[in-house]
């Protein structure tokens, strides 16, 4: 990644041929776009924080305290911390997905924000990278809210919890990059809902959030092992509960792979959609 000198360094001769398959061109020009998203977000801060807190809180109260009291320990872990450390990953995923599906689609097709930005020195590459980093930033913010709740309820107060923050940011990148691919192909709002119902929601139940993966039949376990949410949970849960980590390297690689491949595909598809 070679950031150009911001704002408008001399363009290189090979730049901007509008080729669909050109390598991604990273620059710091995405920063003003990130700030734009941040400014909008700040305007609705109250609503955002409230929705970030209430929904996961209800999950913890209903399933953790209510249902969890009836359940035995899972691998020596009480149900409430087991659930809480999975729920934080789900919230982080939802955050990135919503932003990169409904948020990005609205900016691309409805408000035409992207069209306005493309008339400035930002390119499609900058716009998409701004969306990616912004979605991960929202994931991080959601993660912080969740950590505060978990800490306040006394569910897990480990120093390892703080170390999960960079993990949650990177998980946000991987969730966003896939959603941006869907966004680039979407024919309307229904496309986004379909992806959410068919891919995102089932993933929540297949990633060891509510129950251990060992309860799944073998063939579902095989699928689960390749899901980004599974990878996130497998890193975050032991980190927060100070348990030994298994497969951490493989999980981290999986998240990186989803991010890199997802973003590359999203970029080609978005260029194809917009630069015609």
């Amino acid at each position: 990644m070679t950031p150009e000198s911001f704002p408008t360094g001399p363009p290189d001769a090979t730049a901007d041929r509008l080729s669909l398959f050109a390598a991604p061109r990273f620059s710091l020009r995405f920063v003003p776009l990130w700030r734009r998203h941040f400014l909008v977000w700040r305007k609705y801060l109250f609503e955002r924080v409230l929705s970030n807190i209430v929904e996961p809180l209800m999950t913890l109260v209903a399933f953790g305290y209510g249902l969890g009291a009836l359940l035995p320990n899972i691998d020596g872990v009480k149900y409430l911390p087991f659930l809480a450390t999975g729920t934080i990953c789900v919230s982080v995923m939802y955050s990135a997905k919503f932003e990169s599906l409904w948020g990005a689609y609205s900016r691309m097709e409805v408000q035409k924000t992207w069209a306005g930005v493309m008339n400035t020195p930002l390119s499609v590459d900058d716009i998409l990278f701004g969306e990616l980093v912004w979605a991960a930033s929202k994931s991080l913010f959601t993660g912080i809210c969740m950590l505060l709740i978990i800490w306040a309820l006394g569910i897990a107060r480990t120093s390892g919890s703080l170390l999960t923050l960079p993990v949650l940011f990177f998980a946000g990148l991987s969730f966003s990059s896939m959603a941006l691919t869907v966004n680039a192909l979407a024919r309307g709002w229904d496309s986004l809902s379909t992806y959410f119902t068919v891919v995102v929601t089932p993933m929540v139940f297949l990633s060891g959030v509510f129950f251990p993966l060992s309860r799944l039949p073998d063939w579902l376990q095989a699928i689960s092992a390749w899901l980004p949410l599974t990878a996130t949970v497998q890193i975050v849960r032991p980190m927060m509960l100070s348990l030994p980590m298994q497969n951490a390297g493989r999980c981290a690689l999986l998240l990186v792979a989803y991010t890199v491949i997802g973003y590359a595909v999203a970029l080609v598809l978005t260029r194809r959609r917009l630069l015609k």
Partner: protein
Amino acid sequence: MRVSAPDTRVVLAVRDLRKRYGQTVAVDGASFQIRRGECLALLGPNGAGKTTILRCCLGLTPPDSGEIRLFDEPVPQRARGVRVRVGVVPQLDNLDPDFTVFENLLVYGRYFGLPDATLRSRIPGLLELAGLEQKARAPIGELSGGMKRRLTLARALINDPELIVMDEPTTGLDPQARHLIWERLKGLLAAGRTILLTTHFMDEAQRLADRLAVIDHGRKICEGAPRELIRSRLEAQVVEVYGDGVHAWARDAGPRLAARIEMTGETVFCYTEDAGPIARDLESRPELRFLSRPANLEDLFLRLTGRELRDDS
């Protein structure tokens, strides 16, 4: 257009631009130039290829062939850097609905890498130009269509551009709002800015453009100063005749009185250097009504592009 010694007065040069979408030819070999301080209007019916030409010039659409040089830089290869010197007014407003008027200008200016201090000092002047001084803190939803258009124009000026590109700047505005925009644009031209605009309004082209290029089916049909084009291609006067029996009149008396006659539905257009004989003839026929006027750009446009209806495409 490549010239041996680069002409620094040429802001934008387009040569033999071609672009097709599948079987549809959007741009079919368009060439034109704009010099500094000039206003060029691309005039054409819906679907003529005007917007595609603009997108190509901004480096947002890869042309199939042809050469574009913007500020003597090749486009699209260097479009991203060159766009710093261009302000764009798009066909449809894409202001940020979550922001106030002031924030829209501030946030947009940041995309050009301009520091907030510069922008904050620049914005009051732009608000004044747009007549929106009182609306700085207003959300976009509160603005009328004309105000939004003026804000979009102000936004296009936030980077102090040398070239302003406008895609149908006054489409959908009421007469007052259009006149206000025209006044501002004339001011910008007087201050030495260069303007490239597309329009299908004849009065807009006639008022603003130093030169116009008539575009149809992706090709440039003709180019020149509005008055010159009318003078060189049309008779001086037009008499529009309508009423019962107008077709019979056109058949019998028309060819004798007018240099050229066109019929569209119930109206007959008589082109002539001297409307006097036609008017005298028609005054003796009370069943026919008529309007005598000088030939204008609309006549030229319809002459060149035909009178059939165009679909938006």
